[in-house]
């Protein structure tokens, strides 16, 4: 099956929704797809108890009035020229596009430490997402740890779902967090947001310079070791939600040949000021261009959507707003920089590649992801290195390896459906 769109948007988070809305406002036939069953992405994820946030509902209402085809549970597994191959729970479909807006967002940075594979240890945003989709946390003792403002948002969601949040352990020192807070007045909406979170979290300890050194348990989590300036102590808990910030999801962009900026620890998609990638007719918006937060994602989505539909003037009007939000992102990155000790938490026996159970010591001597993969299977499993590859890059071992199709594990029938016979578009080349 093949569908054609003037503008195809990958990812239905804030950036993708804004892109679809902007492109459709100029009369383009727009397709909006996501691997998830609902719109919203991560930050606007629907909550089984509270619904979607108001801003998300407004964005969806606006979209409903436009000519946008919603393609839920579409996982992109391969790409060819002007064509994506998507797998759905039932079938596979080829999506042919005139212009493509990539809004694939970011995932959490998960760092290995002893015990991190125990059931009960999740990402911070990870447990937030699970709870919003009905994961039972009521009455559970939950420790929240890692870095960045996401910890507060996660803790607030968990508390609203009835969890007993034992504490929030921010690895950044108090001096860095208060220096960050002193700059916040420049973004008044952020001040209001922070105040609302603090109100929800009244009574929950927020510790700085504090991190999880190890998790303990037999078949599931029973307790964690918390380290701070006063030393290490063990606390009993049922769940640990720990995340160290976000990593751009660049896999699809890289597969399409879009240049990435590899200067930092984690690659991000290179775009010009109009959000054009290095490949003609492919645009990128939001976190995959460098983690910038919700407001930046919405503005960039709108810019990319306008440009993809050929409306340069409408996009240009939004450029100053974008720059303002990107300044906020740089502020965040500076003040929540990771403590070097976090890169030394895993010992030789700690599993780094969770898919293939490869311990850190097995990777000693490798300075290249591909060589390590061939010798140890590290990064060869179902997540295809999304977890261990980013962690190993952060640990300073080696950068994440190349991106090859299929982008996600796919059914043979889906790949077979990457029928190469259509004249107007090439087939995904699965041999590279």
């Amino acid at each position, binding site marked *: 099956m093949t569908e054609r769109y003037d503008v195809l948007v990958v990812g239905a988070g804030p950036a993708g929704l804004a892109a679809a809305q902007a492109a459709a406002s100029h009369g383009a036939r727009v397709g909006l797809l996501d691997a998830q*069953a609902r719109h919203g992405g991560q930050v606007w994820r629907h909550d089984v108890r509270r619904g979607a946030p108001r801003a998300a509902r407004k964005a969806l209402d606006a979209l409903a009035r436009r000519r946008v085809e919603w393609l839920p549970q579409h996982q992109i597994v391969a790409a060819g020229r002007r064509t994506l191959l998507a797998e759905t729970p039932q079938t596979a479909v080829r999506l042919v596009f005139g212009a493509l807006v990539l809004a694939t967002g970011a995932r959490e940075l998960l760092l290995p430490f002893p015990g991190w594979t125990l059931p009960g240890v999740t990402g911070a945003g*990870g447990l937030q*997402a*699970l709870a919003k*989709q009905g994961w*039972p946390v009521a009455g559970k003792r939950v420790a929240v740890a890692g870095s960045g403002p996401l910890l507060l948002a996660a803790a607030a969601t968990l508390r609203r779902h009835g969890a007993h949040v034992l504490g929030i352990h921010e690895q950044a020192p108090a001096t860095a967090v208060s220096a960050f807070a002193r700059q916040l007045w420049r973004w008044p909406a952020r001040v209001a947001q922070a105040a609302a979170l603090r109100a929800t979290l009244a009574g929950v300890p927020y510790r700085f310079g504090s991190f999880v050194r190890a998790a303990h348990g037999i078949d599931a989590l029973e307790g964690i070791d918390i380290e701070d300036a006063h030393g290490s102590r063990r606390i009993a808990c049922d769940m640990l939600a720990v995340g160290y910030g976000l990593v751009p999801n660049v896999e699809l962009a890289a597969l399409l040949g879009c240049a990435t900026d590899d200067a930092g620890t984690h690659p991000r998609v290179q775009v010009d000021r109009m959000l054009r990638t290095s490949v003609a007719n492919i645009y990128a918006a939001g976190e995959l261009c460098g983690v910038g937060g919700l407001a930046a994602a919405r503005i960039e989505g709108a810019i990319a959507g306008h440009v993809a539909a050929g409306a340069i003037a409408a996009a240009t009007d939004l450029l100053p707003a974008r720059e303002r939000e990107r300044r906020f992102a740089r502020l965040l990155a500076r003040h929540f920089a990771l403590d070097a000790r976090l890169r030394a938490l895993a010992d030789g026996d700690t599993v780094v590649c969770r898919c293939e*159970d490869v311990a850190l010591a097995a990777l000693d001597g490798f300075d290249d992801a591909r060589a390590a993969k061939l010798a140890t299977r590290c990064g060869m499993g179902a997540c295809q290195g999304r977890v261990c590859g980013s962690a190993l890059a952060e640990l300073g071992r080696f950068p994440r390896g190349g991106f090859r199709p299929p982008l996600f594990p796919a059914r043979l029938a889906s790949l077979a459906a990457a029928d190469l016979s259509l004249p107007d578009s090439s087939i995904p080349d699965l041999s590279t």
Partner: protein
Amino acid sequence: MNAAGVVRLSVDGEPVAVPAGSSVAAAVARVTTRFRRSVRGEPRAPVCGMGVCFECRVRIDGVPHQRACITPARDGMQVNTDD
């Protein structure tokens, strides 16, 4: 989903009810902490909550390796862990 806004399914043969809109992961969590075994036999459960890490893989209606965290729970589903 029935009128009460509850979805009823089975996890490892046990009947489970979850609020409408819940994921399969939320249903499994009500029955067991172990979603799958790793290649070395360790118990594993969801981590990322967003379809990236693949630690939540279960068998749904006979189809193996389905990500429980991004699959909506539906009435009558038969879910099996520990494949």
